[in-house]
C-alpha cells in the first residue's frame, strides 16, 4: 500500500529525515517510536503533504501512485488520514458541519452522492457511541477550547467517520487519561481491517498493549535504526534509546 524509499527531507535548510525506507502493506499496523525531535511528526506531515517540507531525495509510492505528485486534498480523498499531534482550532466553525463538509468532499471525489444532514446524523450516531463522545463537542467550534484529551478523541472520531485507508496517528495517546486511552484504542482497533493500514507514532508502550502492532520501528536522528515486532517496543521501554542506538551501531 505504501512504499517509502530513501526519503530525505529538510526544512529551513536543516536535514531532518536522512534516508527513510519503509513498506506498509494493507492490513498491517506499524508503530514508530523514537526520541523527541527525531523526525516522527515530520514523516507523518510529509506523508500528508505538508508544503513547508522540502523533499530533497527519495520517492513514495501509495496505492501504486506517486504520492509526492499529489496535493494535500487529493491524498486525503485517496484515503490518507493524519490524526494531528496538535489538532488545529477553527473558531466559529461548527464541529459537526466541518466533518460533514469533509466527508462530502471525499464522497464527491469518489463520485458518490453527497450526504444530507439527516443521513449524516444517522451515520455518526454509532461512532459517537463507539468513542463515547460528549454531545456538546459536536456542537462546538472545531477544537476550540477543547481539552488536550478531547482534541485527541475528536481526531479519532473524525477518522472513524471518514474511514481512511491509511491512518497516520501522531501521538494520539499523549494527553489521554487511562479510560480515554482504552476508548480511543478501541476506536482505532475497529479500523483495523484487511484493506486498511495504520501507522502509529507513540512514545509509550502502554498504547501498544491495546493496539498490538505487526511491526515496530525505531527512528533516531532521521533514520530507522531498528525494526522488529511488538517485542522491540518492550525492549525499548526496558533499555531506553541510548542502548538501542549503541546496539544498532555495533
Amino acid at each position, binding site marked *: 500500500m505504501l512504499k517509502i524509499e530513501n526519503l530525505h527531507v529538510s526544512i529551513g535548510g536543516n536535514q531532518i529525515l536522512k534516508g527513510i525506507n519503509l513498506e506498509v502493506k494493507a492490513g498491517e499496523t506499524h508503530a514508530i517510536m523514537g526520541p523527541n525531535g527525531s523526525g516522527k511528526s515530520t514523516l507523518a506531515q510529509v506523508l500528508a503533504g505538508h508544503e513547508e517540507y522540502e523533499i530533497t531525495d527519495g520517492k513514495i509510492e501509495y496505492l501504486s501512485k506517486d504520492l509526492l505528485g499529489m*496535493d494535500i486534498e487529493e491524498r486525503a480523498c485517496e484515503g490518507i488520514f493524519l490524526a494531528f499531534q496538535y489538532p488545529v482550532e477553527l473558531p*466559529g466553525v461548527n464541529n459537526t458541519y466541518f466533518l460533514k463538509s469533509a466527508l462530502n468532499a471525499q464522497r464527491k471525489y469518489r463520485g458518490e452522492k453527497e450526504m444530507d444532514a439527516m443521513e449524516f446524523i444517522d451515520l455518526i450516531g454509532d461512532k459517537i457511541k463507539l468513542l463515547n463522545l460528549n454531545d456538546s463537542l459536536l456542537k462546538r467550534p472545531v477544537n476550540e477550547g477543547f481539552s488536550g484529551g478531547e482534541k485527541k478523541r475528536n481526531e479519532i472520531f473524525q477518522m472513524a467517520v471518514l474511514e481512511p485507508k491509511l491512518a497516520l496517528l501522531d501521538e494520539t495517546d499523549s494527553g489521554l487519561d487511562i479510560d480515554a486511552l482504552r476508548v480511543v484504542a478501541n476506536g482505532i482497533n475497529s479500523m483495523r481491517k484487511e484493506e486498511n493500514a495504520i501507522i502509529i507514532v507513540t512514545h509509550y508502550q502502554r498504547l501498544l498493549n491495546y493496539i498490538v502492532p505487526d511491526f515496530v520501528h525505531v527512528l533516531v536522528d532521521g533514520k530507522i535504526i531498528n525494526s522488529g515486532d511488538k517485542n522491540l517496543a518492550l525492549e525499548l521501554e526496558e533499555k531506553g534509546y541510548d542502548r538501542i542506538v549503541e546496539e544498532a551501531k555495533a
Partner: protein
Amino acid sequence: MNPDSETEMLKGFAEQEYKYGFVTNIESDTLPPGLNEDVIKFISNKKGEPKWLTDWRLKAYKIWLKMKEPHWANIEYPPIDYQAISYFSAPKNAADGPKSLDEVDPELIKTYNKLGIPLEEQEILAGVAVDAVFDSMSVATTFKDRLAEKGVIFCSFSEAVKEHPELIKKYMGSVVPQSDNFFAALNSAVFTDGSFCYIPPNTKCPMELSTYFRINEPNTGQFERTLIVADKGSYVSYLEGCTAPKRDENQLHAAVVELVALDDAVIKYSTVQNWYPGDKNGKGGIYNFVTKRGACRGKSSKITWTQVETGSAITWKYPSCILQGDNSTGEFYSVALSALKQQADTGTKMIHLGKNTKSTIISKGISAARGQNTYRGQVMIKKSAEGARNYSQCDSLLIGNKCGAHTFPYLDVRNTKSHIEHEASTSKIGEDQMFYCKQRGISEEDAINLIVNGFCKEVFRELPMEFAVEAQRLLEVSLEGSVG
C-alpha cells in the same frame, strides 16, 4: 386567476405604462454637468415639488457650499469633481441599455449565475431592455394591497412628498440634518428619489419590506433618500439592496437613510450590499458615501442595523443610533469585506442620551488580497444617560499577507454611572488551519468559506433567514480567487 387580482394586475400594468410615458417626456430635459441654484430649482420643478421642499434643498445647497469634503477616513481616491457630475439625468430609456445579456460584461453574468439569479432578473439588473416586468409587477401589486390593509405606507419618496407631505415635513432631516456632513448636505440638495415607509401605531408590518419589490425607476440610485417612521408600538423589518451586483453608470453614490422609532417601536434595517465591482480592469467601481442614522426617539424603542458590505470600490458608511428615549436600544451588526483593491471605512456611532439606554456593536471585518478594512466606532455617553450600557466587539480576519485591518474605537463617557465593554481581535487564516482542512479533503476555497462563515456567524444570525443564505453565498463568490 380570479377576476379581482386580474384587474389589480392590469391596473398595475397601466401605472407602469404611465411611468414610462413620463420618462420619455422628460428625457429631452437632461441637464448638462454642473451644480448651482438653478440646477436645484430645475430638479425640484421637474419633480413637481412644493415650494417648502425647493427651499429646503436650496438651504442644503448653501450649507454644502461652505463645507469641505471630509478626508479623515482611511481611504484613498482621486479627487471628485462635483461640477463634472450631471445632477439630473432623466432615467435612461430602456433602449439605451444593452439589447440582450450577450452585450453585458461576461464577468457580471458569471457572478449572476453563481448567485443563482434567474435569467429574467439578470436582465433587469443588467439594465437590458425588457418589454414588461410582468411577474414582478403582479408581485408588487399584491404586496401593496396587503400593506394597505394594515395602514402601512410604503412608496417612493416623491410619491410621499405628494401624498403625505405632513409626514415628510415632520420627519425629513430630523435625524440627519442638512448640515450633518458634506455628503448628507449634497444629498439634501439634489436627491432624486428613494423610499418612504410609515408604520401606524401598534402595527406589526405583515412582511419584510424590501426595495427589491418596489420597482424603482432606473437611475435613482445615485442620491437616494430613505425615510422610515415606526409609530408607537409598531414593528418593521426592512431589507435594503440585493446580493446581485447592479450595473450602474454613476461612480459616486451619496445616499441618506433616516429611521425614526417612537415609543416601544422596533425597526430592523438589514442591508446586503454588493455594488457593481467594475469590470476586470476595475473600471466602474462605485464610491459609496452614505449617511445612515436612526433615532430611538421614544421610550423602550429599538433600532437594529445589520449590514453585509461587499462590492463597492470605496465604502464610507457609519450607520448610527441616537438613543434619546429612556430604555431604548441600539444595535449594529456588520460584516465588511474588502478584497481586490477595495477600501472600506465603516463602523457605527452610538449616542446615549436617555436613561438606561443600551447599545451593542458587533463588527466583523474581512480583508483579503490587497483589501483595506477600517472599523471606526464611536460610543458617546452623555451626562443625561444614567445607567447606559455598551458592549462592543470588533474582530478582524486577514486572508493573505498583502491586506490590512485597522480599528479605531472612540469613547466619550460623560456619565460615571454607565458601563462600557470593548473587545477586539485580529486573526489570520493560518497555514496550519488550511493544512488541517485540506488534510480532511476540503478544498482551499471551501476551507476559506468555512472559516469566514464561522467568523461572521454572529452577524448572519441577525439577518432574516433568506437574506442570510444569500449573504453567505455572496461572501463566497466575492472571495473567490482572492486568495494567495
